[in-house]
């Protein structure tokens, strides 16, 4: 053993702070880099969040200041806020938006508090049933309550017209307008507040209140000097969250705001009515400011002022209200509200079975016939895309949660923040961002991501910086050249066969340079890569006859099912070349690290050429019009929920358990698979259910991205209502609610089996 110097002289020299800090950051990443799976996870998640949250938002903000046709800088729409001609209208909208937000938040928080207090403190009968009924609005389409309100309290409403006999004429206040909107929003969103406040109430240590009681304070005194102050962070959090949700909502305002208008609806109309991207973007920015402010307040101010530990389990005993009149007033109020909510949902159910609501109440099944006939495509498309997006959101959420809870690295905060932002910003803004960002190929971003991935690949496989640059340059140039070939000399499919052939040749050429033990994996990976390209080419051989056959079928339902199956197969077999290229870049790392050191240079070059050819082919990432962008939008909207679920689950696990696994020789990947995953699986599945429900019911982000081939149910419901087809809309809504409930039931059954119903799953992820 070489004798080590006893003292370091270098250590005595002062090192500037920025250098140690930079060195630390570099080291943190180096640490993560030692675990290829983890670093790949970080990479892919980072790319996803950057591409589908950060970049579109940036583009929206940018677009607000530039004329889309000329590209010139202009403050046209911001100027309207000071222009006397437009000013009045714009400020009216702004005022109404804020009023709606504040009133919804206040009303929802109060209602949520009353519900939570009833459930936790009033020893209410049938607590579970009431709990699940309260959660009903979280799993139904966002405008279900608006539809129901119109059915019950509208101009031809069952209660207003038929029971109360009100005749609506100009001057009579109806459900439409700001008051109706606030009512609907409160009912729609109060259950979120309920979940947050309930969680806080449950975690409140009764000992504190008992202590106050033993010090001689009266019940009321305790409530407003101990209980309420301790709940303030929860109440404030609920208020702010509801404010953001209300501002972001698009469905309810479109249906029920009548002559008043709010920002989210204005944005929608600017894009889908006036086709004015700049106006939509400028208004988005106006909406983004209060939303972001509140989001930041919620995240950095309220959450830090919590006295109640967030991870603590509910303490055993709960105080209950003894005074019967207080207890029964709470219970009565809650029950009455639940009856109102139930009657709202019942009206949807009844509405879907009624011939013409308000005029002819004869039972009628034709709306379901219509919904499952003409609308079957929408039902199938929405379900299919939601299902595909669910595991994506789940995996991304888990990776982010794992990194956030267990790893230390710079940029962690930013990753967590941005992933949360995707769920928090109004969907309309995100939707516009997607259109602006992905209507044309975002060349710069495509190139940047390629460069990052390629750089990472060579840095992990080749030593010496000059060689690395040379390899990336050569591989990329060849690949770029290849990517320009289709359209010049080849047809697309022939070009892909050529690439597949090249990949197979590479597999053959690599053979002698891979140690026998690792040969199978490397060769198999290359064969699969080539196979992917061949399958892409061959897929029409299956899908085209299938679609033709489907079209020729006499049974309409079967016909629609068959055609949809054909398109669903295409989603998997014919992905966008760019996405395929990025995937292959990741796979390339796996292949190259298996080869011997001396052969790596040319293997990396060849693989880079293949990937570059795929990435830069055609119009890279011009995703608008493809189902992929809908999937991405879904996943982005629900990732914040899966991240939260994952973080909550991981924080329950003692880090020492994972360290013990590492200490026994397992790497991060083995630890995750053997230890972490089994322990967090119940929470993970709950996160998946929530994600799926959120996909099925989301509207605002998707409304801009839906296409004729991939119609979305929520969008169809909206247009049905706009055309006056209330009953058909109700039928669609019932179908949607049914699908979500079925999914929840299915997952419950599965988890119940897998864990012997040992761990309960609850859907409380909606809040917080």
């Amino acid at each position, binding site marked *: 053993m070489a004798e*080590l110097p006893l*003292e370091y002289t270098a250590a005595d020299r002062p090192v500037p702070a920025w250098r140690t800090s930079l060195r630390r950051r570099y080291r943190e990443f180096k640490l993560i880099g*030692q675990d290829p799976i983890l670093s790949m996870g970080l990479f892919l998640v980072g790319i996803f969040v950057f591409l589908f949250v950060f970049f579109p938002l940036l583009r929206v903000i940018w677009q607000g200041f530039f004329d889309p046709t000329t590209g010139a800088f202009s403050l046209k729409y911001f100027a309207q806020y000071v222009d006397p001609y437009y000013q009045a209208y714009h400020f009216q909208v702004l005022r109404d938006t804020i009023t709606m937000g504040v009133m919804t938040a206040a009303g929802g928080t109060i209602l949520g508090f009353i519900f939570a207090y009833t459930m936790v403190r009033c020893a209410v009968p049938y607590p579970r049933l009431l709990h699940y009924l309260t959660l009903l609005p979280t799993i139904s389409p966002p405008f279900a309550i608006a539809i129901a309100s119109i059915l019950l309290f509208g101009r031809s409403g069952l209660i207003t017209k038929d029971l109360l006999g009100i005749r609506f004429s100009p001057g009579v206040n109806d459900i439409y307008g700001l008051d109706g909107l606030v009512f609907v929003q409160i009912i729609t969103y109060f259950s979120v507040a309920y979940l947050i406040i309930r969680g806080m109430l449950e975690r409140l240590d009764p000992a504190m209140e008992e202590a106050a009681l033993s010090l001689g304070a009266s019940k009321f005194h305790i409530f407003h000097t101990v209980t309420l102050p301790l709940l303030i962070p929860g109440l404030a959090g609920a208020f702010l969250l509801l404010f953001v949700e209300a501002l972001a909502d698009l469905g309810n305002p479109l249906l029920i705001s009548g002559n008043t208008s709010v920002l989210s609806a204005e944005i929608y109309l600017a894009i889908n009515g006036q086709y004015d991207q700049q106006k939509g973007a400028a208004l988005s920015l106006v909406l983004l400011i209060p939303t972001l402010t509140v989001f930041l307040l919620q995240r950095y101010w309220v959450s830090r002022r919590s006295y109640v530990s967030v991870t603590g389990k509910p303490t055993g005993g709960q105080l209950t209200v003894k005074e019967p009149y207080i207890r029964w007033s709470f219970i009565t109020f809650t029950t009455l509200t639940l009856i109102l909510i139930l009657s709202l949902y019942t009206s949807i159910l009844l509405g879907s079975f009624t011939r013409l609501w308000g005029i002819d109440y004869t039972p009628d099944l034709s709306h379901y016939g219509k919904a499952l006939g003409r609308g079957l495509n929408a039902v199938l498309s929405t379900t299919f895309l939601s299902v595909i997006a669910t595991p994506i959101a789940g995996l991304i959420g888990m990776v982010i949660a794992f990194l956030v809870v267990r790893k230390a690295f710079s940029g962690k905060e930013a990753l967590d923040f941005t992933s949360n932002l995707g769920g928090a910003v109004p969907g309309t803004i995100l939707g516009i961002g997607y259109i602006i960002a992905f209507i044309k190929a975002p060349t710069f971003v495509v190139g940047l991501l390629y460069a990052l991935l390629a750089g990472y690949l060579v840095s992990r496989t080749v030593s010496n910086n000059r060689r690395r640059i040379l390899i990336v340059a050569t591989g990329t140039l060849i690949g770029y050249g290849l990517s320009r070939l289709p359209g010049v000399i080849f047809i697309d499919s022939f070009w892909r066969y050529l690439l597949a052939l090249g990949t197979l040749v590479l597999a053959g050429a690599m053979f002698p340079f891979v140690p026998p033990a690792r040969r199978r994996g490397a060769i198999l990976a290359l064969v699969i890569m080539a196979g992917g390209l061949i399958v892409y080419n061959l897929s029409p051989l299956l899908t085209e006859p299938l679609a033709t056959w489907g079209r020729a079928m006499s049974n309409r339902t079967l016909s629609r099912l068959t055609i949809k199956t054909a398109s669903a197969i295409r989603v998997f077999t014919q992905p966008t070349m760019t996405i395929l290229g990025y995937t292959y870049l990741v796979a390339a790392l796996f292949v190259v690290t298996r080869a011997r050191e001396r052969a790596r240079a040319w293997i990396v070059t060849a693989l880079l050429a293949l990937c570059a050819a795929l990435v830069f082919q055609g119009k890279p990432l011009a995703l608008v019009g493809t189902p992929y962008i809908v999937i991405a939008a879904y996943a982005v909207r629900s990732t914040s929920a899966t991240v939260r679920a994952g973080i909550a689950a991981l924080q329950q696990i003692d880090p020492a358990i994972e360290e*013990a696994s590492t200490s026994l020789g397992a790497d991060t990947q083995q630890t995750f698979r053997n230890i972490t995953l089994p322990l967090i699986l119940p929470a993970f599945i709950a996160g998946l259910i929530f994600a799926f429900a959120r996909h099925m019911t989301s509207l605002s982000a998707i409304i801009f991205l839906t296409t004729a081939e991939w119609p979305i149910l929520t969008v169809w419901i909206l247009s049905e209502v706009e055309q006056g087809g209330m009953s058909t809309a109700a039928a669609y809504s019932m179908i949607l609610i049914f699908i979500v409930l079925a999914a929840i039931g299915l997952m419950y059954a599965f988890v119940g089996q897998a864990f012997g119903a040992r761990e309960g799953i609850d859907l409380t992820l909606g809040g917080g």
Partner: protein
Amino acid sequence: MFLRLRNLTKVFAGRGGEAEVVAADNVNIDIEEGEFLTLLGPSGCGKTTTLRLIAGFEFPTQGEIVLDGKRINDLPPNKRDMSMVFQSYAIFPHLSVFENIAYGLKIKQLSRDKIKQQVAEVLRLTELTGLENRAPNQLSGGQQQRVALARALVMEPKVLLLDEPLSNLDAKLRDQMRTEIRRIQQTLGITSVYVTHDQIEAMTLSDRIVVMNKGRVEQTGGPADIYRHPASAFVADFIGHTNFVPGTVVESRNGRLNVEALGQTLSVLKPEHELQPGDVAQLVVRPEMVQIEGEYRHYTGVVRRASFLGDRIEYDVEIDGERIAAIEYDPRRMTIHPEGSAISIGFLEDHIYVLPRDA
């Protein structure tokens, strides 16, 4: 040297404006093969950080860790050939006792038979045979502790790391497990690094003790050496009970030091520290080195407190305004001097250690 820590420093960056924390400050420790070494100190002294640096759960800001001649600074914990026993046991709650113990062997991809055989062996060693199929929540605290130990031992690591493994057990079980751990360590001859804040654990288990304070190593040595010749006032105070008596060096001669303390001149053994006549010093006088009404009679004092504890009597005696704690163990003299009575007191001069004033 088998495992050496060289100038090991760990700085935790302060979050959100907080000052950074130096958890380990230039730590140098050499550990020999087969040795049982304990890191001892109060909470927050850096002992656990040092252990986690060795294990690889933290990476040093500066310095290096060398195992068996190889620098292992940048190796992740799973590549270090060490295994750790955690304070919270960290038993995998979803795996049985057998699966818990076999976990690391499965990662190593040993054959089924080999795994079975090795697990059976370690079960015998830790006296867990028969509990293989139990779930962790069906085990008592002591059994869980054994499983945690067995799981680490079965890996036959080069170094066994133990992070306050006994702190969650009740006093009686702790005594028992202490003996057990020492027995197993001796049987296997396994190099062990043990972290504790309990001096009795440290004294009974260790070949050598490293006393740490504020991220620094205060003293390294055998249990007796540390008790008798503490390198600093902190060590003297942290391990056992101590009277610190101020004094001035009068003369240094023939390997002895004449020190004037509380108006008397004592002749004590010369310490390792350089002390010159005229230097202000402090005498480390253990209570059991104070004689009451015995052959040494340096001072006369007044009893301020007397407590009878069965096997011993504890006194606080006041001399010249200084309070001196004394313990009488002599079973032949069980008369208690009442509070307020005047008694003679003497220091066993050969067993008194002298420290410089600022040590």
